[in-house]
């Protein structure tokens, strides 16, 4: 018994010694590789393989840096990110959309990438699309590099238009053309098929407000301005779509998602993002896109995502190298474009021509046409609180429990109270 115990001890000690010798004999291999984390939401769920391909290309080019991918779906991403920051587990690099960027930047969470980029002689700022690069610069600090941008266009089901005998949308359309088409579609399509999907919520409202010639906040971001006449016109237009039966109510939709309804051929005109191109490619009907119709003026969403680095990262230069590679290196750009993973925020028109050459939709030029009249989201530090306050009143206006004017005045009063605490 005693002998057996001794043997076990001897084997154990020998094992530890062998392992230690192994580590000592190859100290470079053990210590020279820098590992950084990258937390993503834009790759979920459709582009995880594309992201892995980007990481593989990066690690090949930078053999001393290893990137660990961590992911969460958009709905959970910002809650997880906040708890990680609170728990001192901030990823070295992570994605932020412009709407959340200000909150994280104001809290001092983000690394100023200027210091790292100054050391990187291969880096040229001009590789990025200027507007997208500059929105992530606050007070002279470059707190992120733009990874992609996107917009919202008018998707339309060609078969339903043909069935209803309605002319297809064009870039010349405005609200009145859209309303006329929606009315005709409603009259000629069977029950359960809807003419025009555009929900009454914050994200649509601030854009439609821009199309109506209005402004969401004052330039100093101290006062809400959306309750003026253009705001009333914008909200009346949005609400009328549901009231006229063009957009389905929540009860009519039930558990169906709007993109699933379009894909099932139940929506003729659908206001949604270009990130859905790939998921509609196998739709069993003909579809295309057009620039969204404007009101008194054209206006289209401009969404930008960035890769940022943690101010507490122990490997700031490696974080910079990855952020820069993932957002602008030709290899990463090629992967992104081939996968229809939004649009890389780069300045090279020849690289972007790959994007334009893909089909469907045939009219991809509408995407760049839409970006000629960009409307950026109104962004403050208490972004979610402002969005919830506005959404709450828009919902009441939609249900008819308060008038459009009263809803906007109440929402403006709530937003002013939030702005006062900024």
């Amino acid at each position, binding site marked *: 018994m005693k002998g057996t115990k001794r043997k076990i001890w001897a084997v154990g000690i020998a094992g530890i010694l062998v392992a230690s010798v192994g580590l000592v004999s190859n100290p470079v291999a053990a210590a020279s590789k820098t590992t950084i984390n990258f937390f993503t939401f834009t790759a979920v769920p459709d582009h995880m393989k594309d992201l892995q391909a980007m990481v593989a290309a990066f690690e090949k080019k930078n053999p001393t840096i290893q990137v660990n991918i961590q992911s969460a779906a958009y709905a959970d991403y910002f*809650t997880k990110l*906040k*708890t990680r*920051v*609170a728990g001192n587990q901030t990823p070295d690099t992570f994605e932020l959309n412009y709407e959340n960027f200000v*909150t*994280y930047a104001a*809290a*001092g*969470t983000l690394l100023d990438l200027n210091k790292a980029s100054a050391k990187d002689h291969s880096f040229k700022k001009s590789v990025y699309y200027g507007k997208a690069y500059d929105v992530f610069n606050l007070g002279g600090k470059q707190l992120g590099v733009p990874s992609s941008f996107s917009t919202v266009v008018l998707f339309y089901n060609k078969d339903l238009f043909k069935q209803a005998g309605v002319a297809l949308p064009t870039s010349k359309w405005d609200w009145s053309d859209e309303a006329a088409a929606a009315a005709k579609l409603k009259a000629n399509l069977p029950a359960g098929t809807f003419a025009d999907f555009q929900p009454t919520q914050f994200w649509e409202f601030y854009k439609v407000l821009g199309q109506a010639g209005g402004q969401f906040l004052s330039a100093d971001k101290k006062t809400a301005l959306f309750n003026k006449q253009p705001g009333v016109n914008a909200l009346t237009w949005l609400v009328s779509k549901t009231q006229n039966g063009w957009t389905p*109510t*929540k*009860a*009519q*939709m*039930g*558990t*169906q998602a709007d993109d699933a309804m379009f894909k099932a051929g139940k929506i003729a005109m659908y206001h949604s993002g270009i990130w859905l191109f790939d998921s509609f490619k196998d739709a069993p009907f003909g579809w295309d896109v057009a620039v969204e119709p404007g009101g008194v003026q054209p206006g289209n969403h401009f969404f930008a995502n960035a890769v940022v680095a943690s101010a507490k990262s122990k490997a700031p230069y490696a974080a910079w190298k990855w952020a820069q590679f993932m957002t602008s290196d030709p290899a990463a750009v090629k992967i992104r474009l081939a996968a229809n993973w939004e649009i890389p925020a780069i300045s090279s028109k020849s690289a972007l021509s790959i994007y334009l050459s893909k089909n469907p939709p045939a009219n991809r030029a509408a995407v760049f046409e839409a970006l000629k009249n960009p409307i950026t989201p109104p962004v403050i530090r*208490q972004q*979610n*609180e402002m969005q*919830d306050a506005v959404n*709450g009143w828009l*919902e*009441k206006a939609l*249900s008819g*429990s308060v008038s459009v004017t009263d809803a906007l005045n109440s929402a403006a009063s709530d937003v002013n109270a939030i702005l006062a605490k900024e």
Partner: protein
Amino acid sequence: MTSKRNGRTAALFIAPSFIPLLAFFVLPMIAAAVLSFTSWDLLSPPHWIGFANFKQLIHDKEFLHSLINTLVFIAGYLPIVYFLGLSAALALNRKFKGSGAMRAMYFLPVITSWVIVALLWKWILNPSGGLVNSALHVIGIQGPGWWTSKSWSMVSVIIPSAWKDLGYVMLLLLAGLQAIPPEYQEAAAIDGASKRQVLFKITLPLLTPATFFVVVISLINNFQVFDQIWVMTAGGPEGSTNVVVGEIVRNSFDYGHMGYASALSMVLFLIIMIVTGVQIRLQKRWVNYE
């Protein structure tokens, strides 16, 4: 020496329960109490603001609204779950073929995840093509909007809540029924009491300890109702199902007001303590311990 060893053995047995309790309940509760006096956005360090969160809370209409919604939920849930649980317990408090299987069936929803139950009921009560509205349509009735309608949303979350907890309440009441010595009911029957009289004069009064336990536990749990509501309605439409814990989650993770959310948690804790204390005080008036 022996008592020392006994103490050590006891500590060893208690440790697997005590350590998680300490780590996941007691310490977070203490942390929340401290945080309720701070302003903390989760992104930058917290700073001390004294009673400011509690002062803000007094004027917070959303909190008051969520508290009222929570009380409405409890008022709808508790009678349903109690009377259905009692009916099931009375029906199953006798031996018949398949009684064991029936009890297990009632208990099955209790051990099912809230997310699954909520998704299932969201589908059953789907205003567009859901099971209930389709059935109503067959008999010529236009079903309501259920969880998309301000008037029906609370009903839509109460039904699955009562359905899921029914088995638990039934089990507790069944245990209470089986603890009643049969001599009492037998003696009453011999004295000529009808079945109804036995139920109301003997069985139910002797079941009050179990009823008291059900009411106390249900109130404690339901002041903290959250999961099913978050999955089914996320507090909507128009805030009609926004409950206190929903308000806490929204303030902490969506708005980054962790200090204020902690103050809300402390107030909820206090409310639950007061309600439970009042019940314990009042039990002397209606609970019969034989």
